[in-house]
């Protein structure tokens, strides 16, 4: 083993852990004891590892995240290990109390704003069309076959855009249809459709809202909530639905 090979092993080792217990790591350490340059490098490497660990541990966590998580987790069923009849009965009571508590508390996490943010960010992160076709009839058939909303109503200006395909997303165990339309120079626009009962406070009238790098226009009608998202400007997007 030479100096460079030893570095390639030791670079992935954290001081004070089992990382150094493999035969290769022990051989690399042995070389570091004999090689001053490698020894110095290893010393600095250990400082680096500790500093990175400390730096990442210092990343601030949003102060209200814990409460938001607990508000969003409807206590449907907690994992129970080694359950007994007594535990099950106790759990049932707790669950009932939990459900009542959740029922009485407005849940921010099923809000329309959260839904809009989630679907728009899903597109920004990455997405995949489950079906690629320009035939809207085929798209509706596909969505219906996958239990996603298929009886959506396309406003006239959207009806004119060529379809590209569609995908099915999931929101709180409900299916969401994602219909992709080609708006030419403005790129792809995404229409998300969900049953209006799945979200709270869906806007009835057209409502514009930017979400990160996307703009969105949302509305609801006929038992469906719609989010149209695209990278075009506000005026252009508002003119589509």
């Amino acid at each position, binding site marked *: 083993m030479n100096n460079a090979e030893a570095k*390639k*092993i030791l670079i992935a080792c954290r001081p004070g852990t089992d990382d150094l217990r493999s035969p290769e790591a022990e051989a690399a350490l042995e070389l570091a004891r004999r090689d001053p340059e490698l020894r110095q490098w290893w010393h600095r490497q250990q*400082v680096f590892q500790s500093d990175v660990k400390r730096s990442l541990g210092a990343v601030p*966590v949003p102060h209200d995240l814990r409460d938001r998580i607990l508000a969003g*987790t409807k206590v449907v069923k907690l994992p*129970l290990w080694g359950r007994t009849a007594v535990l099950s009965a106790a759990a049932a009571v707790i669950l009932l109390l939990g459900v009542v508590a959740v029922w009485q508390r407005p849940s921010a996490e099923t809000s329309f704003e959260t839904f809009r943010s989630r679907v728009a960010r899903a597109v920004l992160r*990455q997405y*995949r069309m489950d079906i690629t076709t320009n035939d809207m009839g085929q798209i509706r058939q596909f969505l219906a076959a996958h239990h996603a909303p298929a009886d959506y109503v396309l406003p006239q200006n959207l009806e004119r855009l060529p379809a590209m395909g569609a995908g099915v997303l999931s929101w709180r165990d409900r299916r969401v249809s994602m219909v992709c339309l080609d708006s030419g120079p403005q790129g792809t626009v995404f229409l998300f459709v969900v049953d209006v009962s799945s979200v709270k406070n869906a806007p009835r009238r057209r409502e514009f809202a930017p979400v990160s790098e996307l703009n969105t226009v949302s509305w609801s009608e006929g038992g469906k909530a719609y989010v149209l998202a695209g990278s075009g400007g506000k005026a252009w997007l508002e003119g589509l639905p």
Partner: protein
Amino acid sequence: MRGDLNLEELVGQHYAALYRFAVSLCGNESEACDLVQETFYLFSTKGHQLNDRSKAKSWLFTTLYRLFTGARRRLIRFPQHELTEVEMDLPEIPPQPPSHFDWNMVLQCLGRLDENFRAPVALFYLDDYSYKEIAEILHVPLGTVKSRIARGIGSLQQMMLDRAPVPSPRTS
């Protein structure tokens, strides 16, 4: 030891580490919050399928990672490459590691790492996971994890050195 696991307790124990893992992956606070919330939501609905309570923590990390990569729907964009061919071809390791940095710079550089290296490197630093545990969380072979960590740290160091501010010459 109690046989059940209190969700609130579980959230309290792991939400901060999960958030830091999430923000290391996506580099974005609001998206990281979404990922953590979605992970616990899934646990509250599907965690009962977990037979071994000691696996709850790694389940959370695995789930968050899967949500991030969108493994179910997005395999096309992020194929899992086996890196056996690059194991013998690690990048040049900088002569000395960087020495002056803060969490902001670490996050920015982590965010620029290749997807395949980012998660193992983040787990390597965040929670003292062993190689074996990282392999289990990410569902990749042990050897692949080791090579991804070594390669990822080498790249991370180079990026941090490139970004480190050059000390201004002193004027007397």
